[in-house]
């Protein structure tokens, strides 16, 4: 087991190193930040000074090694635009995205898996057909449109919920959270629904397909022949057998939503990292872009690493295969 962990950890490091090169070169290839940072009427002298100050006069590999050297010391550079450390900038925005994404992905998974199991267990009932119709909608309706309709309906017409912003926050360990105040929660509801809809649809499909397949296997027939009740079969046999694909998709969704919740964050003016990266790309704020993409890569690598460990915990075949 330990060997398995170490092996996965080394793989993760390698992926991160490769990612840093790709991201750095990719971002370097886009535009010239000087044109955006400085006003057009700036003198040649100021231009030269700024270029030197930002380190843009050095060759790209040198810039990369300086960047990596700083990165290893926990320094991701300063934003060209805000002139504050990038880490501070992202760190200030991350909790907002984190709470929104966790709430929506977790509730979409719990609800989606339950509905999906029901739809797979009783595929002929009208309830299941309704569930599947909802999931088709969740897949096919674009998220920005759903967001606008949610605002129109619940915020403008009914006036039940606020249309945007984070609302009241509470500081816990120096980090601001909306989740722990009633006002903050009311602000989270609409963007969370908006973000969750697609994931809900996917989880329903996934759980339904798994359930339909597993319920036809000899494992379930044998359990039935042993007189084990349907509830126990669903709880003890089915849930474990369909868990692997669900956990995989859960991890991937968690990562990609954390990184790219930008549409929802923009519609609901949710001050998360998604909005930050879009703004940074617009002004070619290179340090923010690089740091953000590296962070995203780090998130994915970490999530995949954790998922591999979870697999090993729940599936004995993986665990024993890894030990051998």
């Amino acid at each position, binding site marked *: 087991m330990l060997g398995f962990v170490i092996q996965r950890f080394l793989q993760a490091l390698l992926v991160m190193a490769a990612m840093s090169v790709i991201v750095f070169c990719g971002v370097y290839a886009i535009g010239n930040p000087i044109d955006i940072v400085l006003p057009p009427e700036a003198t040649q002298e100021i231009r030269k000074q700024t270029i030197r100050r930002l380190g843009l006069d050095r060759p790209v590999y040198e810039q990369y090694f300086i960047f990596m050297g700083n990165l290893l010391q926990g320094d991701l550079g300063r934003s060209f635009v805000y002139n504050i450390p990038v880490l501070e900038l992202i760190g200030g925005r991350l909790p907002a995205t984190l709470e929104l994404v966790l709430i929506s992905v977790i509730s979409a998974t719990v609800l989606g898996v339950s509905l999906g199991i029901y739809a797979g267990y009783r595929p002929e009932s009208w309830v299941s057909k309704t569930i599947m119709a909802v999931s088709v909608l969740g897949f096919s309706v674009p998220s920005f449109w759903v967001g606008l309709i949610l605002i129109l309906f619940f915020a403008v017409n009914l006036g039940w919920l606020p249309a945007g912003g984070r609302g009241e926050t509470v500081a816990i360990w120096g980090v601001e959270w909306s989740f722990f105040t009633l006002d903050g929660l009311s602000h989270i509801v609409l963007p969370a629904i908006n973000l969750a809809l697609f994931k809900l649809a996917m989880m329903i499909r996934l759980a339904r397909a798994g359930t339909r397949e597993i319920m*036809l*296997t*000899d*494992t379930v*027939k*044998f*359990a*039935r*022949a*042993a*007189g*084990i*009740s349907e509830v*126990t079969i669903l709880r*003890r*046999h089915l849930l*474990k*057998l369909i868990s692997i694909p669900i956990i995989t998709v859960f991890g991937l969704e968690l990562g990609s939503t954390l990184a790219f919740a930008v549409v929802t964050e923009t519609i609901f003016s949710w001050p998360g990292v998604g909005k930050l990266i879009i703004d940074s790309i617009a002004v070619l704020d290179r340090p923010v872009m690089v740091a953000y993409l590296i962070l995203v890569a780090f998130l994915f690598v970490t999530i995949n690493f954790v998922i591999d460990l979870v697999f090993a915990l*729940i*599936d*004995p*075949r993986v665990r*024993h295969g890894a030990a051998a």
Partner: protein
Amino acid sequence: MSDPVLSVKGLSTHFFTRVGVVKAVNGVSFDLARGEIMGLVGESGSGKTVTGFSLLGLVDAPGRIVEGSVKLNGVELTTLGEAELRKRRGHEISMIFQDPIATLNPMLTIGQQMKLAIDAHERVSPRAAQSRATELLTQVGIPSAAARLRAYPHEFSGGMRQRVAIAIALLHRPSVIVADEPTTALDVSIQAQILAQMRALARETGTAMVWISHDLAVVSSLASKLAVMYAGRIVEEGSTATLLRDPRHPYTAGLIASLPAMARPGAPLKQIAGSTPSLLSLPEGCPFAPRCTQASGQCTTDPDMTRNDDRQWRCYHPFGHTTPEPE
């Protein structure tokens, strides 16, 4: 013979599919005495497995038992509700399957799976459950059973997995076990071991068995009684010795003739010409008639069961017996 533990009368299970009604089981009747092993033999698609599932009330949609009776220890099962049926499954009647790799849940330990099967019918302490599970595993021939409770199915060989499945089926000392080709997927040597063990277990515990198989050779070494199925019905039934020595139905005779042991070395095996009819559109009359060497014009009407001493057959032109006059 005392009262049978299992009595099946006129059992019919049909599948109502989009393309039509599949008559998978069509008027099957037999009795099973305490501790008796009956072989249910036939080609694939003859309705053996569906018969097995029907006995436990486990026919999947779109199939259902359309008529007939299944009496287990004097209780009619076909009219029981799902909850009452569940109480009997695994407790009074249990089933083992062909593929031991597919039957056990790969993500639960053997101990957990046995505990689930015990808990389905009794409230026992974890310790009592563990000692019961250990005892059963030992009985079916699994060495160091107590330690193996913590193992997962993939740590067992196919033969060992089938023994675990058998142990689970035996946990509550059922009156009847339906064994659906449980040794077909195993090596021949392991097959022989398990057959010997099952015979001993049936004798010790008084458990009766319906042993479903397409392999007449395997079944005849185990069962005291044989029922031969063809196209959803039993075409001949009787004691194993009588049936093998002196088959009445041409289909039974064909099955016996195609056994490798019946052929001279080097000579080609005998075959039954043709193939099983589609259960979706059974021909009028005897379903075996198109393949039968004895068929006559009379065979366009369905023959009834003819009873004689302790055996019965469904044929107008049985071997070794004077043909009854048509009415």
